[in-house]
């Protein structure tokens, strides 16, 4: 189905033919053929590790393909370096723009121009930069340093830079991941303008709704192969996701409830001064309670308070009928509470350390022998157990965590906290930055843990995820608890309208 023969407006500007690339044991790309046409936005989707990044790196001259050829406007070319790619009119913008923070906007736009003479003509450079930005409809002070610009503004500078190099092929690699909705709109406007000017755009994103909003064609990669290329009208998100994971899944399918009647945790009027207030809920054994709300609504702060990282300043927490005080993470762990942070890299994992060492970290005491040294064999045994139980894909438990994919890192982090034998598990954004396949696996694991009687709190900005997983959904808005919705009344519309304050707060009789 790999298809260069779909009708395009003109001849392709960039054509990739049977390209293959291998890194050590991994076949990153295999026999990939893709054609980009001028004036077309071509989306590229696929799980993490499907080969998108490798393709981008080959197109921008960072890597050389092992086999296959690249044709630019019909002529075979060798893209030897990043600078070479730019000379050919191939530019890329990334999620984190790569600007020079100490140079000003105009200098950033023209830094890679080799043809502007020995001396910097500041006046002309400022005028040229202003002209390009004005043509883009972006208002930026060309003399202000790139440091301190918003991400969106930095991306505009990147695009201006690409235009100044007479870009013919623009690669946008996850450009929207850190942008607000308004900024995404602005970016899309820019992308459509460029399309109108005949630029071929390769748009890489994890967000299906964006892909289907902007793309003319959708190509799916899986395991280094091109699975399908479809015109947007012939494709649907479900089909694309099915192609990505190789099986049909319903992203909104609900988990069956395994909640028991025993009350595990009871929280009343919990507040943290200046951060959140009025949080009251019950959590039962085997229950999954979702925390929904917009980013900044205070959901994470409630999680941090329950685990003791940022203790609450008032309110009561009752565990198994006994009032408890959680003043530190140590307290939280002693009471059987585990908190899996949303920020794997900063707060969750020690990336340069082995998988087994990460898993045993919060429970190291258990692995001491009689003279107080660590029994690494026991640590490895635990790690092997979790690798099997959670299907962690790693060469061995001695592998560095940094080398694993996002989904597998997430599973290592889960293992780490499950190893403390928690009765309450707080998961903060458990599937952020994780590919679709791993996401489904994490969801299955959560269901399994609930069936073992663990009370689970899932904090997630991914609404379908919250709805699919939760028995009940607690909705927060601007630091206040607005409602607890039962399984049958929680749907995207009700949750969003409460979270956005479109609907009055629902009192607490929603409690079971």
């Amino acid at each position: 189905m790999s298809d260069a023969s779909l009708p395009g407006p003109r001849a392709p500007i960039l054509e990739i033919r049977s390209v293959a690339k291998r890194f050590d044991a991994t076949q990153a790309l295999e026999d990939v053929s893709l054609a980009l046409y001028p004036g077309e936005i071509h989306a590229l989707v696929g799980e993490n590790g499907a080969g998108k990044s490798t393709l981008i790196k080959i197109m921008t001259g960072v890597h050389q393909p092992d086999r296959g050829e690249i044709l630019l406007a019909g002529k075979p070319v060798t893209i030897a370096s990043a600078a070479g790619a730019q000379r050919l009119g191939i530019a890329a913008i990334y999620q984190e723009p790569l600007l020079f923070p100490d140079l000003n906007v105009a200098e950033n736009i023209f830094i890679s121009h080799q043809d502007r003479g020995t001396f910097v003509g500041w006046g002309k450079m400022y005028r040229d930069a202003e002209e390009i930005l004005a043509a883009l409809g972006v208002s930026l002070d060309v003399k202000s340093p790139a440091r301190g610009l918003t991400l969106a503004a930095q991306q505009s500078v990147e695009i201006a830079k690409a235009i100044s190099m007479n870009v013919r092929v623009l690669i946008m690699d996850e450009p929207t991941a850190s942008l607000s909705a308004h900024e995404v709109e602005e970016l899309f406007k820019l992308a459509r303008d460029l399309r109108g000017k005949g630029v071929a755009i390769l748009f890489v994103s994890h967000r299906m709704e964006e892909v289907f909003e902007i793309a003319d064609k959708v190509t799916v990669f899986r395991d280094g192969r091109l699975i399908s290329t479809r015109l947007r009208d012939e494709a649907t998100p479900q089909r694309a996701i099915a192609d990505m994971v190789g099986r049909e899944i319903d992203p909104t399918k609900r988990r069956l409830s395994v909640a028991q009647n025993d009350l595990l945790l009871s929280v009343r009027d919990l507040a943290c001064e200046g951060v959140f207030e009025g949080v009251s809920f019950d959590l039962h054994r085997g229950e999954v309670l979702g925390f929904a709300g917009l980013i900044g609504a205070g959901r994470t702060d409630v999680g941090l308070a329950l685990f003791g990282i940022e203790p609450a300043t008032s309110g009561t927490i009752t565990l198994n009928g006994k009032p408890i005080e959680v003043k530190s993470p140590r307290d939280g762990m002693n009471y059987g509470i585990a908190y899996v942070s949303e920020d794997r890299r900063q707060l969750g994992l020690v990336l340069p350390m082995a998988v087994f060492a990460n898993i045993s970290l919060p429970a190291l005491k258990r692995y001491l022998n009689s003279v107080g040294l660590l029994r690494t064999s026991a640590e490895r045994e635990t790690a092997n157990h979790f690798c099997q139980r959670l299907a962690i894909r790693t060469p061995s438990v001695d592998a560095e965590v940094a080398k694993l994919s996002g989904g597998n890192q997430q599973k290592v982090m889960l293992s780490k906290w499950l190893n403390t034998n928690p009765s309450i598990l707080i998961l903060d954004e458990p599937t952020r930055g994780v590919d679709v396949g791993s996401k489904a696996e994490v969801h299955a694991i959560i269901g399994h843990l609930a069936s073992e009687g663990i009370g689970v709190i899932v904090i997630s900005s991914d609404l379908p995820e919250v709805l699919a997983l939760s028995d009940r959904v607690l909705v927060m808005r601007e630091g206040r608890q607005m409602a607890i919705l039962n399984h049958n009344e929680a749907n995207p519309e009700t949750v969003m309208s409460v979270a956005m304050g479109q609907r009055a707060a629902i009192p607490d009789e929603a409690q079971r």
Partner: protein
Amino acid sequence: MNWLKRNIRPEQVREFSLLALIVVAILIFGSLIDGYYTFRTFNRIASSVAIITVVAVGQTLVVLTRNIDLSVGSIVGFTAYFIGTWIGHDRDINPGLAVLASIAVGAGLGVFNGLLVAFGRVPAVVATLGTLAIYRGVLVDLSGAKTVTTDSLPQWLIDLPNFNVLPFGDLDVRALFAIALVIVVTFQVGAGYLSFARRFYAIGSNPEAAQLIGLPMRGVVFLAFVVCGALAGLGGFMFLARFGNITVEAGRGLELSVVAAVVVGGVNIFGGSGTVVGAMLGAVLIGTLEQSLFRLGISEFWLSAVLGLLILLAVASDAVILRRLRALWAKSELKLAAQSAAGRADERPA
């Protein structure tokens, strides 16, 4: 205030405050030391500042690229000693040739530093700490612990430090200071207007991005070390002219003053920002402190401690004060942006 913000960058505020600091230091020393406000004092400070400045200009280029050259003190001593010995043996050498030879010797030693850092991938701190010891060791070994004495030098060299280039009434601009001024102006203009020089800033500012757009990183870093070595060589010549008597200890510890001057002068130790003029202002402050503390009879060990403290303060203020200033500047820009994008803040992650 808004006019100020539009026309002055936070970095320049720093340079002005440094200027104010120098004035304050001079006022304080003036009240402590009798007869401080004399041209004698000025000339002493000026010739001390001149050497630090010239070497600091080279160091600035290196620091801009996110590196550091700790071997400059050894290069100064090495050059001063060997050029001094050479001139002592052959007193008819053309002065211009002597200057060029000094620069060449320094550049040669800089080439070695540059090869180690840019192509050998040795971290600059380690590489130049090594060459600091090596250059000094070679000097001690080859010299056989003899010294260059003033008597052996030709008259033109002995007279050079007192040669008056531009007399303003009683105030002299003497040769060494004039050399420093020429170097500063040349490099300041070059750094601002040469396309090639902007790459020093780019590479230090974001090495990853520089790599990605194909800037010749190794070449630029190598060149920074060579130019730094060359200027240290020129500094060595000035050192020879100023002191005449050169032992194997010449220039030892100078790297501390030079790095202090650069960092105090507002060149970011993490690369990417800073100016040559700033480094000169830093050198003026350091030179003033050195000479004045010396006249107060304070031990040179205390001087080192003061320099160390200045480096720490400068780096700390870089981190704290500059960030505050930038935030202040950014705020006024945000106000403008806010109107067009109301409500954007709510969507930011907490």
